């Protein structure tokens, strides 16, 4: 899922400067799962903002509402009746959610309350790790289920650079070397031939805004499809 992280309170306050009534919108999807922007986090942030602005002697009112998912218009529709009562909207969803929200309410300033970090996994409660760069051309079948694009600091395709130490990336001792792991896994599976072969320069697919329209739905969205 998408993992995100709260922005510093001061940065959020700076964005909200001058707005008296703000609607803080949570997201019940990924943001909620990674404890960055669900109902609980909306309440927590609102309390912090209220207390902080009050301490500054600034008149400020913030309310919260969490929708099922901000990346779906039908869930955003729940906000339609509320939005008019506020000068600005704060969103605790990922960057996709923030943009969809801004698209639905083009007259309202919409501000992000979190930084979208990566597509990752829950290693444990409150511990997330990146796994995917959504590069659009998956090589996991060759690399033993370990992604060199997301997990290698240099995104190498033909084996490790000269730097791994004790199985760790030369850049950060807390990060395992993707290629040491790829090697070990393929070796254990008897599939080392996969990486003895040259992997030629790839054609990067993530060049422009991604868009997928499923074949079965094409006729619904594209006029000239027969």
């Amino acid at each position, binding site marked *: 899922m998408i993992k995100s992280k709260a922005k510093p309170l001061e940065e959020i306050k700076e964005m909200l400067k001058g707005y008296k009534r703000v609607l803080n919108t949570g997201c019940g999807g990924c943001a909620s799962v990674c404890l960055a922007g669900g109902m609980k986090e909306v309440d927590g942030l609102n309390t912090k903002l209220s207390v902080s602005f009050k301490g500054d002697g600034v008149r400020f009112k913030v309310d919260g509402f969490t929708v099922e998912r901000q990346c779906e218009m039908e869930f955003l529709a729940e906000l339609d009746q509320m939005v008019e009562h506020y000068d600005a909207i704060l969103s605790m969803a990922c960057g996709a959610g923030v943009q969809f929200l801004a698209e639905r309410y083009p007259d309202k300033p919409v501000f992000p309350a979190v930084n979208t970090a990566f597509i990752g996994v829950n290693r444990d409660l409150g511990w997330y790790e990146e796994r995917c760069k959504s590069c659009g051309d998956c090589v996991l079948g060759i690399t033993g289920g370990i992604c060199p694009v997301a997990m290698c*600091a*240099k*995104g*190498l*395709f*033909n*084996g*490790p*650079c*000269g*730097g*791994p*130490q*004790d*199985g760790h990336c*030369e*850049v*950060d001792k807390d990060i395992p*070397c993707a290629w*040491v792991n790829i*090697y*070990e896994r393929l070796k254990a599976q008897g599939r*080392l031939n996969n*990486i*003895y072969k*040259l*992997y*030629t*320069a790839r054609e*990067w697919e993530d060049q422009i805004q991604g868009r997928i329209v499923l074949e079965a739905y094409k006729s619904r969205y594209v006029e000239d499809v027969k």
Partner: protein
Amino acid sequence: MKSGSNLEKILAEGKFAVTGELGPPRGANAGTIKDKAQHLKGMVDSVNITDNQTAVVRMSSMAASTLLVKEGMEPNYQMVCRDRNRIAMQSDILGAYALGIRNMLCLSGDHQLFGDHPKSRKVFDIDSIQLVSMVKKMRDEGKFLNGEEIADPPRMFIGAAANPFGEPYEFRVHRLAKKIEAGADFIQTQCIYNMERFREWIKQANDMGLTEKVYILAGVTPMKALGMARYMQKNVPGMDVPDWVIKRLQGVEKKKQAGEGIAICCEQIEEFREMKGVAGVHLMAIEWEHRVPEIVEKAGLLPRPTV
């Protein structure tokens, strides 16, 4: 001849090659290159010009290489994958050749987090092995990476790096094999201190027939002082400095440590000259260019052959 460079000719004639290294300055003064180059003139067959090494901004390696050409010396133009995409790389390769550069060393590059602009955006559009194969395609097929014809193809002598001490050790010789398959003509290794492991690696390369397909230049860096040895042992990724090196430097008084470092280096070179599969040495006297004449003299590598 693939490129007709001095380095290629010396290696092709089976002579023991010596390459040096010169780091461009953190400034725009051409004189700095000239001054450093004087120490290397006649001492080495080709001089590696590093490309923003350790991800620290320096004068461009192509510009510095060109300045070396003007000095009548032969550069080995280093190019890393960190800062350029395939468009910029191919463009630079055309330009470099037009400016008289004939050797290239293709590298991934130190990660930007080590450097002076740690939050810069990395590129790594292609990796070092893919770069080798691209330079070969440009030379041998006269085509760009996309398959289109090049009007006047650049004919580079293609180098790549190898680190026999990197993990996983068993994979290292296979990575060498991949670089050769991609088109590397010569290999310059990481600085060698752990001779035992290097002997093992070169034996594997010999056994796999790799040393018949590529010229391997063993990398050496003389220790200037005990502090440097300790630093390299602990802090430089991919560097394997065994304790015996530290002990030898500890065994002499401080002002004799540099001499001891050079002595160790010369002993290594002596062994490399006799080692099957080693075609030369790559002498990386980091910010110590002025000691190169002394080192090559002591190692018995002078005079350099003219071909």
